[in-house]
């Protein structure tokens, strides 16, 4: 599959903007997009988001026979999967050149810099050692995959716990998790990578390029460094020539950035550990509900919770089939007001129930008919009809949590586009013949901001 081609005007414009040190999201040249680190339910599962780039890392372990040349050391195996889910230009199966580049960069950063003490992974010299495997999957590609993958990999390694082992003479016992607490890996240092994109023969540099910037760049330099100012990896790619002082400058900028990211990783690890200890909820479902991506201040727009009118809906669904198959007369409670909250443009929340996974639909129930939006006015004051389920039904599909519905739970259906839809629906009157949805006259010309279409 091919991604959409880069047009000349786009390329020219982005280069002109970068020459003026302007970036599309208003960032400074050495500033990162907002980084979000989330940990999953299982130990060693980590999801990292840098802006829109998303990456998931999972660590697992296995007992194997060590290499003959290194009988006392365990093995660290890294694998980065660039699936076509992330970007149409990635191919499934055979690894493309870019895939190899990302894989090797990460291998050098983590394995060759000895961030994990491999000798501590030895169980019995020459016979049994632990093999730690880090699998990184790229979920969405919006530039800067190497940095995102490195943060995910090292955070997952720090989060991971391996089963405890006792060796008595010739016998080796691997204790399952319920017998003995799992043991963390011994992480020597936290190496992270910082990517620089070069433009205009190295005269302009940007940190953390987005996909658009990556397409027009001359080349990039990836600097792997840790908090103690130790250089762990250097990688230059692209058709460009660099000078020594440029390299030194980049490395110094990277050293400054890495400190902040290391602190962020440590913070999130501590929070997750604390949540696990105190018995609070943890895992993706909890974390994702709390995340709000940073949006440019100027265009940030927080929408107040809005109610949606579904009175006509309530009237049609009068009876409900409960778990026993009996038809039960339902009381539609119109007193509750619903909440339509739009977190970020383009996303909406399907349920206000923050325990992700708790489905409040009854089996065999008549489906709620469409959520109908009336309003002739812009100011809305309406209610969401709520259903009260009379019985408790268990649906346990999810591996993580059992899904329960109780009569206390109320269902709120929210549409992410409900607000937009509501104000548009009354303006759809004028449309031309065969083209549905708008005028299509191809007029274009200069003007004082006249809309030409």
């Amino acid at each position: 599959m091919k991604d959409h081609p880069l047009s000349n005007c786009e390329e020219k414009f982005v280069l002109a903007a970068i020459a003026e040190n302007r970036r599309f999201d208003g960032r400074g040249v050495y500033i990162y997009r907002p980084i979000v680190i989330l940990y999953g339910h299982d130990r060693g599962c980590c999801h990292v988001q840098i802006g829109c780039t998303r990456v998931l890392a999972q660590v697992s372990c296995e007992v194997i026979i060590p290499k003959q040349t290194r009988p006392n050391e365990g093995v660290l195996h890294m694998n980065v999967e660039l699936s076509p889910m992330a970007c149409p230009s990635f191919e499934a199966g055979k690894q493309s050149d870019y895939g190899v580049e990302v894989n090797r960069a990460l291998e050098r950063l983590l394995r060759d810099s000895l961030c994990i003490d491999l000798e501590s992974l030895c169980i019995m010299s020459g016979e049994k050692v632990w093999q730690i495997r880090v699998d990184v999957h790229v979920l969405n590609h919006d530039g800067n995959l190497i940095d995102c993958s490195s943060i995910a990999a090292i955070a997952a390694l720090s989060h991971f716990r391996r089963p405890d082992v006792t060796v008595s003479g010739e016998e080796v016992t691997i204790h399952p998790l319920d017998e003995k607490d799992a043991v963390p890996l011994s992480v020597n240092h936290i190496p992270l990578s910082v990517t620089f994109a070069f433009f205009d023969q190295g005269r302009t540099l940007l940190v953390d390029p987005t996909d658009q910037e990556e397409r027009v760049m001359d080349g990039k330099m990836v600097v792997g460094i840790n908090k103690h100012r130790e250089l762990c990896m250097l990688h230059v790619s692209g058709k460009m020539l660099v000078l020594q002082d440029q390299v030194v400058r980049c490395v110094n900028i990277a050293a400054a950035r890495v400190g902040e990211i290391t602190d962020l990783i440590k913070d999130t690890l501590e929070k997750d550990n604390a949540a696990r200890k105190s018995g609070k909820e943890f895992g993706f479902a909890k974390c994702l509900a709390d995340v709000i991506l940073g949006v440019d201040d100027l265009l940030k727009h927080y929408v107040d919770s809005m109610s949606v009118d579904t009175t006509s809906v309530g009237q049609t669904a009068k009876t409900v089939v409960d778990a026993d198959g009996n038809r039960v007369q339902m009381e539609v409670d119109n007193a509750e007001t619903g909440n339509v909250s739009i977190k970020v443009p383009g996303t909406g929340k399907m349920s206000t129930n923050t325990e992700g996974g708790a489905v409040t639909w009854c089996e065999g129930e008549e489906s709620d008919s469409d959520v109908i939006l009336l309003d002739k006015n812009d100011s809305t004051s309406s209610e969401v009809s709520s259903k009260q389920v009379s019985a408790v039904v268990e649906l346990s599909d999810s591996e993580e949590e059992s899904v329960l519905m109780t009569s206390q739970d109320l269902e709120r259906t929210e549409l992410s586009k409900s607000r937009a839809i509501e104000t548009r629906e009354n303006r759809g009157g004028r449309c031309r013949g065969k083209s549905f949805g708008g005028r299509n006259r191809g007029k274009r010309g200069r003007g004082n901001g006249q809309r030409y279409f």
Partner: protein
Amino acid sequence: MEDSIGKVVIPGDILQNLDEKKGKIKVTVGPGLIRDGSHIAVTKSGILRHREPSVFWVDCHQKRYVPARGDNVIGIVTAKQGDVFKVDIGSSEPASLSFMAFEAATKRNRPNLNVGDCVNAKLLVANKDCEPELVCIDSYGRSSGLGILPNEGFLLQCSIGLVRQLLRNKFNVLTFLGKAIQYEVAIGMNGRIWLHCHTVRETIAISNAICRSELMSDEEVQIMSKKVVDSLQGFE
């Protein structure tokens, strides 16, 4: 059917039982609706729209463009093959654009189009069985705004829904911003918008404002445009 106009419909909803209606009624169904035996069924989720006398369609949110005849689109030239340019319009197949389909083009006088340039063109042929064809002139042979877009602009990718919104509404983010900023815009039905302003800063501001305005109501759009204009002019 009439009572669901302007309301949300989802695939599988049955709108009208044609057998019930007496007499002859000619009902035109558009995108998102399909005639299924004796009734009209909905195939895409969105809002049902209506235009007199009896045209119905569903407005849905989509990112991928499916070519339709008569649409005005912005394409990017990917190859020159003999007498024909291959243009990418974001659909499943690249469209073809003959070099003769430009104003004042003759066999000797060819248009100056290179690989990577943007064109504002109209779809002449667009059905599911063959590759789409574009033209840059209208039926009278005049360009009427179609043709090669100069290299000085910026091409923005957005959803089809946003583009339809911009074209349908009389007052939208473009008119609000246009009161204070001078710009040139070409909107393609395939979710591409070409934008050109005097400075880079204005272009970036306007393109961000357009993208964000998709989910905002009118007042919010007005507030946001005012904020954008103020900051561009230096107050804040």
